[in-house]
């Protein structure tokens, strides 16, 4: 698993944040993300923003499978990791430690840098 372009654009207050990046499955086996957690947040959930007839809404998408050689692109307006229940003051330059729990008990940890809004 390789994670590039990881980032959490900072919004003020205590509301949820979105984590973005590209998660590539470099192995020859499918990777199934069963659940996630994030340090300093109550919960982390894979979410998908969808737009239908000019109306947008979000839905949880776990568990999510990344096929061998495939990648999961987390980008604004599409799939993202929703970080809920902020328990710490964050600033640009900090990083959020996100843990992905894979099927089979394996865990992958990655630091998502906190960035300014684009």
């Amino acid at each position, binding site marked *: 698993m390789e994670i590039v372009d990881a980032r959490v*654009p900072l919004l*003020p207050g205590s509301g949820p944040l979105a984590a973005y990046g590209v998660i590539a499955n470099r192995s020859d086996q499918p990777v199934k993300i069963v659940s996630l957690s994030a340090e300093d947040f109550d919960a982390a959930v894979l979410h998908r*923003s969808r737009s239908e007839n000019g109306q947008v809404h979000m*839905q949880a998408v776990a568990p999510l499978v990344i096929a061998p050689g495939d990648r999961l692109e987390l980008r*604004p307006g599409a799939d*993202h990791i929703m970080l809920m229940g902020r328990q710490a003051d964050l600033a640009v330059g900090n990083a959020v430690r996100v843990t992905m729990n894979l099927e089979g008990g394996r865990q992958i940890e990655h630091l998502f840098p906190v960035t300014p*809004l684009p």
Partner: protein
Amino acid sequence: MSRITTLIGSAAVLLLCACSDDSWQTKNVAGLLPDLEFSLTNDHGDPVSEADYAGRVTLLFFGFTYCPDVCPLTLSKITSVARRLDADPADLTVLFVSVDPERDDLTQISEYVQAFGEHVVGLRGDRAALDAMTKRYRVTYGYGEADAQGYYDVSHSSALFAFDRRGAIRLLIRETDPPDAIAADLRRLL
């Protein structure tokens, strides 16, 4: 007879041309929706109406502050266009109306909109005021079920409604409209 038909046909074509100006790059909705009109509270706690924004080009957006993905995407896109046009916030203002007034208090709205710079004003009203406004612009919103943490999603319109300096509806800017198209159209309205 055929001459009369031709004349009627020409008149119809002329009327059609008057109604649909194809040179706009976002969706031209002039005359199809009501003028800007509302009675809400701004993020400083002051009661405001359309009169407070008279003389400006305004962009109306319905969102909520617990929206970390689509709303920041829309607001960042539109404010970067505003900065690119070098538009003064007193000439071009984005009106961010919360469709989640129960969770979005004025402090939360104020913090949220400040992150996007001076072009964005946060507005809040009770459900009656909000419903009057969403009905006026024919948009809907809805609340999803709360999860274990008490978080619920809010569905809302992804579009921005653009009004000219007289408060007349002019454009519908959709999420798929590229920044260049939005910039070109806003430059004309400004």
